[in-house]
């Protein structure tokens, strides 16, 4: 592998025959790498990965398995965005809507939907201790999502999160028409509707704020709204927007995401699975997966080319692996090496467990209109490393929630 990398970096390398040979070598190398790092008890997808195989049909929806599809999204422009369909019902009824193209996001917590996806559905608003309608200013690195907090029965495959507090972003109800000033000062409204109909946050938190919002308004997430306006409030855990997995009767300690490997050049669609629970069923066993515990901020450490990145995380909602390497050329925000590169990094958990990750970087132009491809980009920060969706290719990645009990100890942790 190191020989291959060195060859690719050589400025004298590319002739067309050599390039084709290298591409073949890369496909083989990728296969070898993937087969060597599979092993998670829930079944490595590596065996399914052949460069020229047709796209397999989505796996069937069953008890704890929700099919994932990586496609071009509702706007035809998405790349490396994993989508699921979720069923949202009025509490206690079978009056439901199936919402397609909901982004599976391991970097946030809770279900957030656009109002247009729920037309005709009447979901009761969550109320504060003082009886006010609860609004939320949910926070993302790129901005905020202002909207209402309402209860719904959320059905994910065969699992049920009944009465789950969910966020309706940009809720048209007049109570939530005015964005609180403090909320607008954290950023612009994020676009849940651009390419997707919502976000299914299945990260490490059981509630999107937690104890900080129970005792203080300082986080700035929750508001009590009345016709006169919205004011910051504290909110009990049970009323906060929930990671719906935490509300399941079983399979409620975390998730696993499995995606097949992706050949050079990318694929037009990719099908995988979102599996609920860890060590609760035969299909979600940790098995030989390595556990990477996180620090108080939910991060671990990545070492790359001798540099240490202490704010490292795994994010299915990022469409590339984002890290800083000034030696790589950048085109339109993504790295664009002349020929595919195989790079290597070492992840170190908060408790000192280490593991090497080999990954591929292709240029965006070379993958055309693929929906899934090995992309990377500059994160622009010296200590952050964002393992986006390409990290999931050919892997099963477990997310154990805070407080989870598993065969390999308590969450929160990643395992792969």
């Amino acid at each position, binding site marked *: 592998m190191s020989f291959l990398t060195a060859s690719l970096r050589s400025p004298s390398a590319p002739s067309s025959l050599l390039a084709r040979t290298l591409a073949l070598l890369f496909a083989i190398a990728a296969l070898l790498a993937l087969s060597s790092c599979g092993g998670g008890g829930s079944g490595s997808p590596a065996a399914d990965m052949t460069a020229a195989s047709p796209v397999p049909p989505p796996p069937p929806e069953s008890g704890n398995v929700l099919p994932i599809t990586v496609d071009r*999204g509702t*706007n035809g*422009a*998405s790349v490396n*965005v994993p989508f699921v369909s979720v069923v949202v019902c009025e509490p206690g009824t079978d009056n439901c809507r199936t919402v397609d193209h909901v*982004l599976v*996001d*391991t*970097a*946030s*917590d809770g279900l957030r939907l656009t109002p247009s996806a729920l037309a005709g559905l009447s979901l009761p608003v969550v109320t504060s201790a003082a009886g006010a309608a609860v609004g939320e200013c949910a*926070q*993302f*690195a*790129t*901005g905020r999502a202002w909207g209402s907090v309402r209860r719904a029965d959320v059905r994910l495959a065969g699992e049920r999160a009944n009465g789950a507090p969910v966020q309706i972003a940009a809720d048209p109800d007049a109570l939530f028409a005015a964005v609180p000033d*403090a909320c*607008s*000062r*954290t*950023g*612009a*409204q*994020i*676009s849940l509707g*651009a*390419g*997707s109909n919502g*976000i299914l*946050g299945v*990260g*490490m*938190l059981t509630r*999107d704020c937690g104890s*900080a919002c129970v005792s*203080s308004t*300082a*986080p*700035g997430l929750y508001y009590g709204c009345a016709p006169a306006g919205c004011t910051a409030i504290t909110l009990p855990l049970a009323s906060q927007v929930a990671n719906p997995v935490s509300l399941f009767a079983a399979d409620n300690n975390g998730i696993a995401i499995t995606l097949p490997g992706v050949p050079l050049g990318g694929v037009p669609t990719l099908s995988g699975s979102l599996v609920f629970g860890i060590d609760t069923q035969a299909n979600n066993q940790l098995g030989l997966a390595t556990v990477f515990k996180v620090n108080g*901020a*939910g*991060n671990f450490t990545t070492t790359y080319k001798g540099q240490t990145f202490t*704010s490292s*995380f795994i*994010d299915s*909602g*990022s*469409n590339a692996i*984002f890290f800083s390497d000034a030696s790589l050329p950048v085109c339109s*925000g993504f790295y664009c090496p002349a020929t595919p590169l195989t790079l290597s990094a070492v992840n170190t958990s908060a408790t000192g467990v280490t593991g090497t990750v080999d990954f591929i970087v292709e240029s965006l132009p070379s993958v055309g209109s693929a929906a899934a491809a090995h992309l990377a*980009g*500059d*994160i*622009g*920060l*010296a*200590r*952050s490393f*964002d393992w*986006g969706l390409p990290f999931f290719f050919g892997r099963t990645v477990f997310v154990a929630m805070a407080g989870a009990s598993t065969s390999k100890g308590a969450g929160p942790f990643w395992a792969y």
Partner: protein
Amino acid sequence: MKSLLAAVAAGVFSGGSWAGLGAAPGHWPAQAAAARSATVSTGSSSFTVVQHQLDSGTLVQEFVDGSGMVFAVSWSGPFLPDLKELLGVHFDAMAAQGRNQGAQHSRLAVQGSDAVIVSTGHMGGFEGRAWLPSRLPPGFDVRAMP
């Protein structure tokens, strides 16, 4: 250069009402637990780092030059700070980019000629840096910002 900076700073202060990146340090809640400042020297120049530990648990830092102008800021912690206060007039550039992110919610970068703004992270752990490339003191390394 020095007189130009002083003139800009004087304009800022006479305006009085706005603060943040490119202006005077922001106004942070009085209850913010620990406000500390330290003077740092980088060879020929020196600057001041003003640090606020907010009640939300998030740390914000403002890097202030000799004229009193904030030339760089950073934030790190479980919740977003008041980014309008921290970024000042450059907040609008971040907001404009934020509206243009599609389904991408974990990384934002504004690479303007006047200001660079980078924000990343996940619920429970956010990180961001912003700076004015033309106002950095000699020897100031943005990659080394805490």
